[in-house]
């Protein structure tokens, strides 16, 4: 299992690169596009800026897509990308943070169908995170930038059921980074040293489940409304790291709403 998973992850770029070529032989293929907008709460900690946890509100957008690797294939190629902006304050409301992130991931998952109504998928994922936090109160450490890439696991469960003569779908998707790398200043290193003077000191850090336990979860209900489906649900965005002695977490919990539609590609 582990070896197969490793091979899947290693082959992911090749598979992605090969998708376009294979598509030329496809005659008809369904692609599910989902557009979501979210609002929710955020809990933010970055000890480079402050030892205190900041809390506030967050707005987000998320786009996902999924398609069979080829017609009839048991493999699903999926992707997601999205961004969020947060405004958070310190416990005493003296400090304010602006936080923004962009994240993208591609997933390749094997599909199982234990029952006609239930579809389970499991496989690998690769992702990229980019973001930053700006604190209005700090002098020479006013902001923190984030850039990271990861490889991990991805899973999805979808359950279809009939209600009011229509087919509804409940879908939960989970990505868990296992290993990767991220940018971080050294414990007390200023951005002046990094970018103005060009000094480097362990600024690219290896991450793994132990020092960067993170996860991205969406739990969605697809409500059929004609050619598209209304989607409502919950998104949990948990990003954490403990590198160079600096602790970071963003715990975002968001209510999301949007729509999904299937596009049939004819080639």
């Amino acid at each position, binding site marked *: 299992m582990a070896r197969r998973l490793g091979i899947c992850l290693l082959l992911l770029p090749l598979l992605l690169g090969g998708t376009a070529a294979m598509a030329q032989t496809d005659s008809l293929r369904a692609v599910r596009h989902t557009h979501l907008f979210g609002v929710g709460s955020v809990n933010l900690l970055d000890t480079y800026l402050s030892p205190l946890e900041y809390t506030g509100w967050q707005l987000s957008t998320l786009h996902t897509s999924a398609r069979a690797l080829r017609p009839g294939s048991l493999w699903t190629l999926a992707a997601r990308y999205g961004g969020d902006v947060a405004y958070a304050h310190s416990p005493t409301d003296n400090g304010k943070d602006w936080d923004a992130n962009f994240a993208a991931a591609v997933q390749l998952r094997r599909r199982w169908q234990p029952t006609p109504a239930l579809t389970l998928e499991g496989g690998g994922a690769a992702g990229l995170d980019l973001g930053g936090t700006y604190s209005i109160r700090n002098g020479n450490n006013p902001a923190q930038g984030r850039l990271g890439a990861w490889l991990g696991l991805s899973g999805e469960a979808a359950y279809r059921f009939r209600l009011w003569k229509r087919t509804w779908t409940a879908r939960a998707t989970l990505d868990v980074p*296992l290993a990767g790398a991220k940018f971080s200043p050294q414990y007390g290193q200023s951005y002046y040293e990094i970018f103005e003077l060009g000094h480097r000191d362990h600024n690219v850090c290896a991450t793994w489940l132990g020092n960067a336990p993170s996860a991205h979860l969406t739990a969605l209900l697809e409500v059929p409304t004609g050619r598209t489906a209304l989607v409502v649900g919950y998104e949990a965005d948990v990003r954490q790291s403990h590198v160079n002695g600096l602790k970071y977490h963003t715990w975002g919990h968001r209510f999301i709403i949007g729509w999904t539609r299937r596009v049939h590609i004819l080639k």
Partner: protein
Amino acid sequence: MRLLSIIFALLALAACITEDVPDNTRRGNFDALWRTLDEHYCFFPLKADEYGLDWDEVYSRYAPAISEGMTNEQLFEVCGKMLAELRDGHVNLYAAHNVARYGAWFDDFPTNFSDSLLRIYLGRTEDYRLAATLRYRVLDGNIGYVRCPTFESAIGSGNIGEVMRYLAACDGLIVDVRSNSGGLLTAAQDLAGIFVNEPTTGAYISHKTGRGHEALSAPQPITIEPFAGLRWQKPAVILTNRRTYSAANSFVMFCKGLPQVTILGDRTGGGAGLPFSSELPNGWSVRFSASPMYDRAMHLTEAGIDPDIRCDITSDDYRSGRDTMLERARQLLRAAASGQ
């Protein structure tokens, strides 16, 4: 399944990454302040060597003064006194009602600067030019004078270029950074760039690599890039006093030892630790030296930089409206220009 079990077991082990912060009580805030400095302040080894600072002993001396019944102002006073043990102008505690600060580095010494005297030399507003923060004019004897009161904002290369062009025909240059309390290190680097013709190591900087007092990175150079336009090749004097601090102290550090530059005045105030900020559970801000800077000889300049020529403004000169330091600088430059 076994792999999944291991992964989820690891995930559960790692769980949430959080920071333990003391409660928002009198004791909690005092402890948070002491710990912030304990883990992030960069000059403990220097201060231990200089005057025997023992941060644990400081805690044990001040902690008994903390009680939950004390007022905010009383807590602030105790915290401020504890911070003063660091003898560092870059260490501050900011509350709504006051800022705790250490000022012995200038309070115990002559000011050696006077706005009234400056007005005599610069003249009225229309008599001198102003480029960004730089005030400049040509003094009697064809000596260029540039008053740089702060590095709080960037000095554009266009500004420096215009100043240099205007003063290009002068026989000598005085750059007055007295009572300049600092600001942007990049502004100090830019201004120092007029005195070098090739990339020159002006100083070294390191940073904390962990919570330990001795956990510091190997110092790496701060390179002064030559100014892209005109560069000053003739003699120059930089005027300093005890309030020449932080980025202004760094400017002096960058320039000291350059062949055409003489530092004249009083010892600078120091402040050679790039400050970082943090905060306490009650919302008070704390600032502290985080990244030590060293001169070319790898000496810390936290305690200031000695001038090449020591000079104070005399009481008689104060009374007669004469700036002893500026006159001495002008005399030096005139002598150099006439080849004496």
